[in-house]
């Protein structure tokens, strides 16, 4: 029981980290809080589903195409909407929120609700580890999560675009004076965030089904993790997702499954009371705290 709970808690934490990492990347680099994040997540899942079931493409191909389309959508969203309101936090939030709302409710209106809307697991197999059942998909999630984090770290530390990302994040004007096009980098950051949401959807959706309300849940989870971890801090996101992931799974097993959401709410309020910029939010501490 205990080992099983720990195993599932790890999986849960990695899921949370996967959900939050794209949001965090976008916010950390360009300062855009992408409230359409959950909608992009769901949109990519529906795209894969449509490519898979209507065009009957193989799953991997469908997934890759939908990830690319979602990435492109992120870039278009920045180019045509966010660019015009750049720097005005309120307008950015409302605009992205409006886009997200429109996408999610459109899918709901078109009737994409039900258990048949799901994606297949990549490898259908399950193991027994220390007396606990765990299926291949969950192990795959952990692997993908780990690989993505390592990849992102290497990307932001050892490639020129990645270094430009970090430059913009640290000081936009100085980066501009060094010849980094901040609009281009911000476009890339929003589209990369969208792409990460799509990757997360491809790997996580097979555990459940696709539904528009899931989009709001994803946004809430991503926000919760990012707020606790400190926005813009990747290390903070990982620690926070493990904190929430373990807390949720343990309340689930030992108290009641109804209480899982309350744990994250309590965690947010406690963390914000003690440390308003989040666990690891050092980067912008002075600006965001008054």
């Amino acid at each position, binding site marked *: 029981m205990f080992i099983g709970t720990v195993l599932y808690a790890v999986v849960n934490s990695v899921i949370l980290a996967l959900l939050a990492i794209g949001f965090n990347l976008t916010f950390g680099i360009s300062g855009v809080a992408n409230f359409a994040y959950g909608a992009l997540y769901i949109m990519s899942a529906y795209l894969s589903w449509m490519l898979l079931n209507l065009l009957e493409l193989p799953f991997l191909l469908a997934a890759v195409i939908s990830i690319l389309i979602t990435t492109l959508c992120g870039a278009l969203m920045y180019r045509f909407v966010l660019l015009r309101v750049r720097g005005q936090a309120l307008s950015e939030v409302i605009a992205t929120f409006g886009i997200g709302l429109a996408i999610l409710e459109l899918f709901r209106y078109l009737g994409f609700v039900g258990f048949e809307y799901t994606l297949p697991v990549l490898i259908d197999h399950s193991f027994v580890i220390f007396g606990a059942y765990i299926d291949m998909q969950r192990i795959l999630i952990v692997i993908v999560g780990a690989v993505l984090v390592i990849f992102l770290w290497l990307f932001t530390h050892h490639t020129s675009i990645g270094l430009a990302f970090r430059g913009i994040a640290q000081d936009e004007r100085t980066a501009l004076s060094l010849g980094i096009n901040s609009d281009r980098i911000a476009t890339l950051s929003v589209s990369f965030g969208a792409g990460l949401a799509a990757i997360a959807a491809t790997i996580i959706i097979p555990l459940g089904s696709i539904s528009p309300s899931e989009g709001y849940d994803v946004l809430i989870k991503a926000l919760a993790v990012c707020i606790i971890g400190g926005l813009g801090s990747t290390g903070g996101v990982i620690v926070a997702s493990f904190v929430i992931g373990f807390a949720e799974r343990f309340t689930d097993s030992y108290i009641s499954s109804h209480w899982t959401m309350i744990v994250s709410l309590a965690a947010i309020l406690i963390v914000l009371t003690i440390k308003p*910029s989040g666990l690891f939010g050092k980067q912008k501490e002075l600006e965001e705290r008054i």
Partner: protein
Amino acid sequence: MRNAQLNSTDSKHRRKERIDRGIKARSSDIFALSSWREMLYLAAPRCIPIVGCLMLPLVLGIYWQKVLLSVAVFALLAISWDILEQSGMISLGQALFFGMGAYTAGVFNHYFGWPPFLTIPFASILGGLISTVILLPVLRLRGIYFSMVTLIIPLMLVRIVEATRIFGGTEGLSGITPLPSKWLELYLIVGALLGALFGFRRMMGSDYGLVLKAIRDNDRSVMNAGINVYWFKAQALFIASAIGAFAGAFMTHVYMFVGMPVFALDYSILPIAAAVVGGPGTLAGATLGAFILVPLSEILRGIGGLRIVIYGLFLVVFIVALPEGIFHYIQRKYHQFERWVEV
């Protein structure tokens, strides 16, 4: 606000020049009003909404009277959003205030049998206090952080009500005492709306409101002036949440029911949409937005879920294309005339 727009389509460059109308200059600065026309110029924008709001319940049919109720409720929520926005707090969770007021009124009526005229004022204050206390830890954050937390809290409170089954759980509390008459209902909410609109407009124009606006513009210089920013923000938050809680408590008695839907996303989004469409920063714009959007959504009821899609797109279009909102646009046309001049 932009005073001149460059137009470079022709070979000759022209720009739009905006000049205050003579009547504005005469009637706003010099307080010797010399003609009926000038007095009308000043009084009309204030009297038309008042008379209009008071007349509307008399001329509307039963169905549209109900619509007027929800217009007024959403207008109150939008005003509450606008007050927060003017104090530098962008809330995405008006449903928190609405729901707190609704549940407080419902609980005191259902379990203790308090009559509506006691629960409504009590719930406005207690609901406002509870919301303020919940958000106190977040007050130290600003900008997007505050928005994120306000978005999350009502959605999580729904789960808490579901999980703990307090106050009727998923079933909610039904059998709440209604208000004694339909006319009292209508005029109570319309009166509250007008009172809130003009009262808080005046408040935001006073020195107190200036402090709040200054916090939005530059909080550190306000701190420099020796003013406790958190205390003022907490007050603004209490004012805004009390307005929202009043709307919630009122709706509880109208529907004779309170349940989880009071924390629904609708109550967070529609007020923001109204304020954005109408024009933030004036309170009147927020009210105007509610008077446009809520009836529009009633007309569009036939298309069901597509309504919310249209709201979303409305938000995006207005934020990008007309960020000042309808009210500022009308105000400008009323006070100024425009002409093209060659550069």
